[in-house]
């Protein structure tokens, strides 16, 4: 009963969001700058949700998510530039292929995951991301540092329905996975991997699985990204991009898909809306980041949480009577 109610609420939220954006788009209330923000917001939501699977639920830190995204973006762009099919068919193939190539990379990166943990893993994923970027930079087929241009803009705001559906699919895949038996196993690995192993959970298999799924979804986000901006440059996928995605996941509260979505929307929209204070916006952004982390781990916050828990307990006790 509880679950059905939740599902209904989520469906209503999705419909309301979709309707609101469609109305805003069609009524011409949005200026050009706001319209151009719509797809980046969706891309970042996809990226944040897919990274949330690894960082929030599996509990491993990766700094190479932009690498997966760039693989998807380049594969997708090259396919839709070279395939002879009608644009939407090519786009469909590009999305699947982009996801698959990124997933293969995810599997390759998943192997060291079995041997490394924590900070060492973080640096290896950072290394992988940079390797992907420099290889793309050095290849001819990807246009090197000049970039790849002339990609048809099939996912910009005129195609909001398509982008919205893709974003929903990504969110549904991750949230259904987390609520399944596999998802509980992944969370158990995060909480205590030795105990999880002792309970008979095949830790290695689930770790690689999480990496592959996350990479696949990031690859899809990359394809959408490529078909929105129309030009790809290796410099757009450096480690700062990975960190930006990571910040979304962390600010949203690790292990919360809803939080990641909200943080992705706000963090993508905020810098654009703050353009008036352009010189100070990155400064504000960094101060917010530090302040947020300090607050989350402060005694004051701990006291607040305790108070809330106490109230909930008292309520439960009353209900018991």
């Amino acid at each position, binding site marked *: 009963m509880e679950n059905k109610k939740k599902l209904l609420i989520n469906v209503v939220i999705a419909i309301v969001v979709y309707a609101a954006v469609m109305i805003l788009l069609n009524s011409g209330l949005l200026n050009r700058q706001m319209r151009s923000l719509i797809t980046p917001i969706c891309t970042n939501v996809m990226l944040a949700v897919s990274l949330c699977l690894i960082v929030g639920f599996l509990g491993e830190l990766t700094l190479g998510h932009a690498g997966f995204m760039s693989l998807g973006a380049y594969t997708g762009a090259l396919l839709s530039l070279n395939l002879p099919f009608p644009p939407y068919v090519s786009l469909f193939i590009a999305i699947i292929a982009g996801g698959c190539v990124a997933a293969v990379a995810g599997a390759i990166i998943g192997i060291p995951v079995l041997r490394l943990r924590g900070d060492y893993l973080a*640096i290896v994923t950072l290394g992988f991301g940079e390797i992907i970027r*420099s290889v793309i930079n*050095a290849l001819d087929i990807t246009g090197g540092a000049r970039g790849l241009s002339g990609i048809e803009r099939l996912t910009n705001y005129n195609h909001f329905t398509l982008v919205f559906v893709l974003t929903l699919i990504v969110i549904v895949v991750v949230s259904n996975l987390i609520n399944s038996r596999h998802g509980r196993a992944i969370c158990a690995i995060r909480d205590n991997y030795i105990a999880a192993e002792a309970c008979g959970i095949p830790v290695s298999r689930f770790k690689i699985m999480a990496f592959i799924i996350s990479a696949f979804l990031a690859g899809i986000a990359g394809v959408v990204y490529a078909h929105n901006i129309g030009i790809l440059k290796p410099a757009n996928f450096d480690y700062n991009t990975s960190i930006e995605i990571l910040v979304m996941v962390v600010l949203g509260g690790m292990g919360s898909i809803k939080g990641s979505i909200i943080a992705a929307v706000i963090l993508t929209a905020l810098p654009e809306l703050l353009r008036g204070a352009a010189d100070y916006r990155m400064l504000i952004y960094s101060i917010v*980041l530090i302040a947020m982390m300090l607050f989350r781990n402060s005694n004051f916050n701990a006291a607040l949480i305790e108070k809330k828990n106490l109230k909930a307990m008292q309520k439960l006790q009353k209900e018991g009577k």
Partner: protein
Amino acid sequence: MSLLNSILEQLINGLRTGSIYALIAIGYTMVYGIAKMINFAHGDIIMVGAYALYVYSSILKLPLVAAIILTVVTCSVLGIITEKIAYKPLRNAPSLAVLITAIGMSFLLQNVALLIFKATPIPFASVVNVSGIRLGSLYLSGTTLVTLGVTVIAMVALTLFVNKTKAGRAMRAVSEDRGAAELMGISVNATISLTFAIGSGLAAVAGILYISQYETLMPTLGALPGIKAFVAAVLGGIGSIPGAMFGGIILGIIESLSKAYISTQLSDAIVYGVLVVVLLVKPSGLLGKLKIEKV
């Protein structure tokens, strides 16, 4: 003969960049050993060092020695302040929270520099005024000589400090077991502050050497050597000071050889590839100790 010559030249180039990496990597590794955190803002301390030198020597026109000393002091103080403000309250927080804070700190330093000095690169001639020497057919520039000399001196001094003095012993004790060290009467806070001060001071020295080599000031100049040095620290085994020195120099040499003989564009990929392979074979780095996890 000419091939041998060019290889030797590349080795020396590698040694020069590598020793800068090593100086930065020591900061990463010391902080990691004692505070168990990756200080992502460490790379930006290099940038602060470079700008501080510019301000002291070019704008305030102080004598060179005074400017260098002031630069090192500025960075050390900055290191202590960042630790007190941003990292100390998070000492018992999950490591990811600390990492994010450090990333925030790095953004903050970069953007403050961007606001003060603007994004346009500032040309800044090398402060090193030493003429180069010729060894047979090999030419060593003044910057190279000073870089190598300063690095050797700094490393010897640091090794002596860590192994022979009381404060150094306290540092090793804290990195071994913080709780036990505290019970023995070691002031953990003071030791951590000292570590940040030394690490940031070395980063300032590295910043001065780096800027004498590249001669252009930018708010983001610290990011690249910062990441490379971080890789060097992990390669050598994070937490181990000899490992950081060794890792830095190895990394510099690999980078310069692959730039010269394989491909300039792929040199970064090769550097990271070596890192991945080393970590797969020896997960705790070249000289790191493997910790056995107990339940």
